[in-house]
């Protein structure tokens, strides 16, 4: 077959604007267990697998002593009165499942990935972890030793030091969003503090369950049987407020490795959370600034100047106060030029009209990404989890879509004038 003579490769094929696509967030099914624990379920997928996530309000926010929440969460699977750490691991491994746990600011989780057919073998042991963990002293000792060693290695990396410092500047050292672990943090951990945190925030804690994938037909019954009788969600969570005490010094330079070839650059300012009326618009402006590969920061600082392998901006994913952050690792001798260019791009967003085709590109990109992100049950439940834990509802999702569709270049300029002002930003280079 010969090349059709009419094929003109300079003319792009017609497209349907992604902003015109119909996007729907598949609704969840909600169950309430006998003890009041809420279960959000998405039954969908092509493979016979599922993800079960138990979220506890047992994050750093609730610990009285630094490091306790993370240690408790980590050691949940390191021994119960019936099983050793090895036996617990072996049980989950035998069924080809993955049991992970994570500790965040407000919440922590236990998250299981398994073949649907094995769920009933795994739930009893999950229950054991939240009711009967024993936190053996020798397991804690190994944890302390290995975490300290890991920290030592991590502190050699400029980006790790930079991430810790910038958060401290933004929130202060005593705020859960601003604090970090030191060797002393690990040395001070003791079993009693962990046990009592465990009993309060897991045993008698507040829990929400998210489950997605191809679900067994009796999922509600199975969850109720294993978790519905536990004393969860009875006691109210303590109301704890931490004052934000930001650094008084805006510009900081730290030398971590005198011979390093690159520096970690962080530029950040405080920003409200998702409940603020500017948040959704800021999400669009952020995308334009540094939120994707075609952003202005990438275009200028990577694709034009070659200062870095990548530069990104993002809004921190916090339930409480948040921040707007620009982050990159750049050549040691071009870090200052990189900062200059970042401010230059902010200035352009404040002062120059944003071209219509760029607006269209960002809008289409965002819509396409959201559409792509909703591909599969785990992604859908992830969206829901974010919405629910932030105290929002599906309106938030649909309003976000409307904002993306309707926002004008002038509104983005106005937003840039309000938030992208050089003098409001903390600046840090760690080399």
């Amino acid at each position, binding site marked *: *077959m010969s*090349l059709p003579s009419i094929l003109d*490769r*300079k003319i*792009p*094929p017609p*497209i*349907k*604007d*992604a902003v015109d*696509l119909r996007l729907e967030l598949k609704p969840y099914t909600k169950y309430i267990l006998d003890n009041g624990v809420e279960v959000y379920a998405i039954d969908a997928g*092509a*493979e016979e*697998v599922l993800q079960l996530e138990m979220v506890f309000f047992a994050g750093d926010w609730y610990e009285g002593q630094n490091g306790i929440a993370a240690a408790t969460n980590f050691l949940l699977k390191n021994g119960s009165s019936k099983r050793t*750490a*090895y036996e617990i*691991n*072996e049980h*989950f*491994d*035998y*069924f*080809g*499942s993955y049991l992970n746990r994570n500790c965040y600011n407000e919440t922590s989780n236990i998250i299981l*990935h*398994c*073949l649907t057919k094995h769920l009933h073998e795994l739930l009893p042991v999950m229950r054991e972890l939240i009711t009967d963990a024993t936190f053996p002293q020798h397991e804690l000792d*190994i944890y302390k*030793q*290995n975490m300290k*060693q*890991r920290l030592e*290695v991590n502190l*050699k*990396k400029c980006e790790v030091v930079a991430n810790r410092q910038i958060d401290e500047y933004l929130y202060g050292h005593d705020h859960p969003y601003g604090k970090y672990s030191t060797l002393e943090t690990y040395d001070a951990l003791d079993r009693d503090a962990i046990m009592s945190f465990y009993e309060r925030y897991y045993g008698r804690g507040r829990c929400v369950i998210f489950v997605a994938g191809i679900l067994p037909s009796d999922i509600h019954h199975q969850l109720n049987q294993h978790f519905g009788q536990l004393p969860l969600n009875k006691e109210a969570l303590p109301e704890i407020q931490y004052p934000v005490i930001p650094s008084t010094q805006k510009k900081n330079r730290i030398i971590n490795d005198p011979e390093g070839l*690159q520096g970690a650059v962080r530029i950040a300012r405080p920003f409200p959370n998702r409940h603020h009326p500017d948040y959704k618009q800021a999400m669009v402006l952020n995308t334009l600034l540094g939120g*994707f*590969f*075609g952003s202005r920061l990438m275009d200028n600082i*990577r*694709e*034009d*100047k*070659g*200062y870095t*392998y990548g530069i990104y901006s993002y809004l921190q994913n916090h339930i409480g106060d948040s921040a707007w952050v620009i982050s990159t*690792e750049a050549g040691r001798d071009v870090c200052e030029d990189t900062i200059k260019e970042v401010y230059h791009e902010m200035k352009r967003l404040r002062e120059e009209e944003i071209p219509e085709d760029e607006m*269209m*590109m*960002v809008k*289409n*990109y965002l*819509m*396409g*990404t959201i*559409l*792509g992100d909703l*591909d*599969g049950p*785990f992604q859908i439940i992830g969206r829901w989890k974010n919405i629910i834990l932030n105290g929002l509802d599906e309106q938030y999702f649909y309003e976000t879509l409307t904002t993306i569709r309707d926002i004008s270049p002038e509104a983005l300029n106005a937003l840039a004038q309000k938030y992208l002002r050089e003098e409001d930003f903390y600046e840090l280079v760690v080399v």
Partner: protein
Amino acid sequence: MIKYERFTVSNGLKVLVHQDHSTPMAVVNVLYDVGARDEEPTHTGFAHLFEHLMFGGSVNIPVYDEPLQVAGGENNAYTTNDLTNYYCQLPAENLETAFWLESDRMLSLAFSEKSLDVQRKVVSEEFKEHYINKPYGDVWKILRELAYKQHPYRWMTIGRELRHIEKAELDDVKRFFFKHYTPSNAILVVAGNVYVDQVRMLAEKWFGGIAPGLRYERNLPGEPQQVEERRMEVKAKVPLDAFYKTWHMSARMDPRYYAADLITDMLGGGGSSRLYESLVKDKKIFSNIDCYHFGSHDTGLLTIEGKLVRGVDIRTAEAAVEDVLEKMRTDLVEEKELQKVKNKTESIMAFEDMSVMSRASSLAYYELLGDADLMNTELKKYQSVTAEEILKECRQIFRPENSNTLYYLSE
């Protein structure tokens, strides 16, 4: 069971189509049969640098990313020692945009000096970020050079040294492109909310007119069988001593590969694996330890690596690893443990197949190995591995004269 259809465009380009009408998205995946192993020893890092240049504009389209983003799509690419893979995902309505973009950069790049100049710098920064400015970042450079003396696996995908990237010339770029980036060296997979007839029409329309090019005949120097144990010691500015040991293992399509893959899971796959349980938890010699391999197409490396608990002598640590391996060489694995690593393999495969994007890249990958159908039949090969085969494979792999040991010590 992943279903697909296969056809060939008039110029020889292989196409696979995987339909999944439950998603609104389409995925276009183009795999080129070229990796870092195909580079000249004096021009290493080229396949990967080239991957960057593929985004610097093609003959008719000044920028790749922009029109794709306008169509609501996103994309990325990766280079390994064996292959280079490009993929994009976009709303299925805009599928043709991906054909337009991908076919134009297969037709010809723009070959702009500016793009080469910038990407040389970007890749240099990537090199620094991942391999120099990072504790233990140069380990794989050392391990590869220790284990391979002839085969081009002796350098990393990013390249052997920064200099090779810094001095890349536009003529080299053109030669590399016309040698490797041709329809006869590519596999196109289209997946998601698409139809075979539609893909056939679009493939012919956009790719059909591109000259097929010569099929690249790979003729790499084989790695001679290692006959003597190799050891090396380096000192570096790192906080902890680290232990690395590699052994040559069979190539990806060798029937023995499956046993070797399961062995790495027995030794290093998670909290109930032998190395972790014995050396991190029981003896407290390592603060972390892992066992893995890269699934290399040619003869690969099985690796054990770990960081030592401070105060432990590295020779003690090595002896403790040897004890674990001695057991692997002596005792038949129990049925339960063998079943455990097989179950794990089954579940990894199921999770991998969840997204259309990974199904598309897997199809391309297996087609490159010889037959996309392997995607559906490999699990059986794992399931049929016996305890005796595991034992035999351990005895074959874990021989001193097959090993390369690196002590990476804190200064």
